């Protein structure tokens, strides 16, 4: 791994490999969040008002 600092002091500039890795992580996070939204929505439909009932 390495940090590339821009000559004009614009902060850290990502390498191509780092950009690809970030894109891969971003897609994974988006898919996981989307799946969770759908799951929670479906559970709410299934449980109805019982969604607030949490038995031991």
């Amino acid at each position, binding site marked *: *791994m*390495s940090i590339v600092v821009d000559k004009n002091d614009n902060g850290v500039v990502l390498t191509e490999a*780092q950009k*690809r*890795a970030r894109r891969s*992580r971003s897609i*994974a996070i988006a898919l996981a969040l989307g799946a969770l939204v759908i799951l929670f929505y*479906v559970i709410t439909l*299934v449980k109805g008002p019982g969604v607030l009932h949490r038995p*031991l």
Partner: protein
Amino acid sequence: MTQASPLTAPDHLQHSAANDDARYEPSLATGRDYISLLKPRVMSLVIFTALVGLVIAPGHIHPVLGFTAILCIAVGAGAAGALNMWYEADIDAVMTRTANRPLPAGRIGRDEALAFGLILSVFSVVTMGLMVNVLAAGLLAFTIFFYAVIYTMALKRFTPQNIVIGGAAGAFPPMIGWAAATGAIGLEAILLFLIIFFWTPPHFWALSLSRADDYARAGVPMLPVVAGADETKRQILIYSAILLPVGMSPWLFGFAGALYAVFSIVTGLAMIVLSAQLLRADDTGANRIAKRLFGFSILYLFALFAVLLIEHSFGLTFGRLSW
């Protein structure tokens, strides 16, 4: 017998100013690396055994809630695996089998793995508690704690009984599945727990026999490292002998039928025969039989749980004992 040697962590895992700077470098970790942190192969057996516990439990759970429970168990198990890899990066780095994992290979930083494991742990337990029930969530939390803290931190580096006691962590999933479906812990769930608990030592020691040098180099006191191959083979046979009646117990206690009885007896005896062959084998043959026993043990556990699932799904109650 091979002597354990002190741990030698790779440079990028040592505490130093250079490595502290490296913590702030942009990550090269991909989504695939994070998935491998979840130990997907271990997770597959966890999912299957939890599914069987959930399906054969009495009563009815809505399929969506059942899916949610299995998902939470899978994510919780994966989180425990990530925490295990975070803590064991130094051991993994010196073992051939694990040297290419994301942490020792330098693709994921330790802080990233720790954060990933903690977040998934909390998320899976809270989701289970809110969407399924609190007992299942409590058991899931305890399982993650048991694997990540009791097994990984307190047992693995200090006692050859590490995988005997630590095996409990892998035995909880069917009990959690059962608790998710019923909100309680029945005798049947305890028997499923015991099957996996007594299955773990012969399964894992068969693997560690052929990896003793690796464990010795990493300083992990696995039984073959501290007690030698002969004692390990003897212990494998003892646990395989105990496993036979434990494996039959669902039939003996009347919640599995004749098909399960036949499978548990035949495969249980096959485990004993393989273990006895291993005990008698010389050094050259032992490695081959140990690998065969390791592979068969996976088939054994899968078969027992699959037959339970089939009997329940098709209503095959023939041959059930009633006391």
